[in-house]
């Protein structure tokens, strides 16, 4: 089925709309943070105020243009949240799980990514600002971004519990446990509020490299699993059927491996 047909005439077109938007949002997010603004991998927490000024000067236009794009399109983060909320609603568990996930992730958007966009934009827009204040904006940006923890911690645990309790077979059980891995990344990031150097600092081997690897893998996996759910979904309330043979043939080989 073509992209246009799945968005125009397919019975599940709302689900396809949010799924394609999710893929587009995460792609944009990756390009903005890793390529345009070069705020990932993050700057060093041990920079002096003068070095922080240099850091802003080094990526002046990238920060302003990149985060402007997030200001335009950041609201589409709601599509993945809505689709995951739907996946929980499709389970045999109480709607309380679905609504908890929705509200946790929806409010997380402000401290989770709007703050870094605002802090870095304010830092870049006046390069001649007092270096001590530039340093503060630098810390504010990175710490709010990596240090917004609780919503993702509790949100992942909610999704995990829903998957493990579910009797409708919405997701494989192992994916429930993968949510626990994502929740643990929010535990090991906590020391980045304390340490300015070492593996636990916000750019450290544990707090950044391992966390980003886990989060990246988790995100790719859940995007595939959500696609798989949409293909299998009969839009009912009971157990979700197995993938129809035709769809299974067309599915990406990796998707089949992940779906087990």
């Amino acid at each position, binding site marked *: 089925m073509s992209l246009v047909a799945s968005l125009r005439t397919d*019975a*599940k*077109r*709302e*689900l396809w*709309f*949010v799924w394609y938007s999710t893929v587009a949002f995460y792609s944009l997010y990756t390009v903005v943070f890793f390529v345009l603004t070069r705020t990932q991998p993050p700057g060093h927490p041990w920079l002096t105020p003068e070095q922080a000024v240099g850091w802003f000067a080094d990526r002046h*236009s990238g920060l*302003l*243009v990149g*985060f*402007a*794009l*997030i*200001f*335009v*399109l*950041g*609201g*589409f983060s*709601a*599509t993945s*949240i*809505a*689709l995951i*909320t*739907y996946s929980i*609603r499709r389970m045999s568990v109480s709607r309380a799980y679905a609504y908890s996930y*929705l*509200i946790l*992730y*929806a*409010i997380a*958007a*402000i401290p989770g990514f*709007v703050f870094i*966009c*605002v*802090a870095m*934009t*304010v830092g*870049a*827009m*006046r390069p001649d*600002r*007092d270096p001590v*204040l530039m340093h*503060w*904006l630098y810390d504010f940006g990175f710490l709010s971004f990596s240090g917004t923890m609780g919503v993702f911690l509790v949100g992942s645990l909610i999704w995990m519990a829903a998957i493990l309790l579910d009797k409708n077979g919405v997701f494989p059980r192992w994916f429930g446990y993968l949510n626990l891995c994502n929740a643990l990344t929010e535990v090991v990031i906590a020391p980045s509020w304390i340490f300015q150097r070492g593996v636990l600092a916000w750019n450290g081997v544990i707090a950044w490299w391992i966390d980003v690897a886990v989060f990246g893998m988790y995100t790719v996996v859940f995007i595939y699993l959500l696609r798989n759910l949409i293909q299998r979904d009969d*839009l009912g309330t009971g157990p979700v059927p197995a993938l129809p043979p035709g769809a299974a043939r067309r599915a990406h080989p990796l998707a089949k491996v992940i779906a087990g």
Partner: protein
Amino acid sequence: MDGSRVSRSGERAIFWTLPAVAVVWIAAFFLFPGFVPPMSPKASAAEVAAFYRDHLSRVRYSMILFNWFCVALIPILMLLVERMRGMAHRTPVLRYCVIGVAGAAPIAFLTSTVFWLIAAFRPDRSPALTQMCNDLAWITFTCGVPFLIALCVFVAVAIAYDDQERPVFPRWVARFNLVIALALVPSCFAGLTLDGAFAWNGFVSFWVKNVAIAVWIVVMAVVLRNAMDRDGIAVGVGA
């Protein structure tokens, strides 16, 4: 989809908070001395500090009003979410999209009032610090529209997918929402310049953006009212 068994009680009361809240918003808008005309991003730190010293009370009272009532948009948006139940959708996923952005959109604005109020809290602070708080407030206020943009697009998609004989909202409302979304886009780039139409006090980033939001609220209130009438909620004053 499951609209028939959902209670509509009390929705009329929420709807009629809108005119009252709108009066407060308009009053606060004109009370804040930094909106008419909008403060220039080119003002020096000393000028910004002087602005807060000279207009302390009006900054505080206007921002306290916004802090109280900007979030009063959320119950109105929930009326919109309830109308979406009547749309010819197979799943609630678009409602979840709207709920997801309905909270964050006014909270972004609420965050900017916090920065404005911090700037005003100690007017004798170092001017550079006051200027930074002022910048944080203005960038959050001007660029903090991603959730409104997404809201307009979600509403447009929801209407486009509502293909039944008598859709909940007329088709033109979808196109209207896309136009408003586009009108909000340029303000996201306000950090790139301190001067001209795209600066935070410029024609596009300040006037087009804020008028677009005001027009959206008025037009959506009218179509919402018509849709509520059809759902049997007598919204009229005499009802």
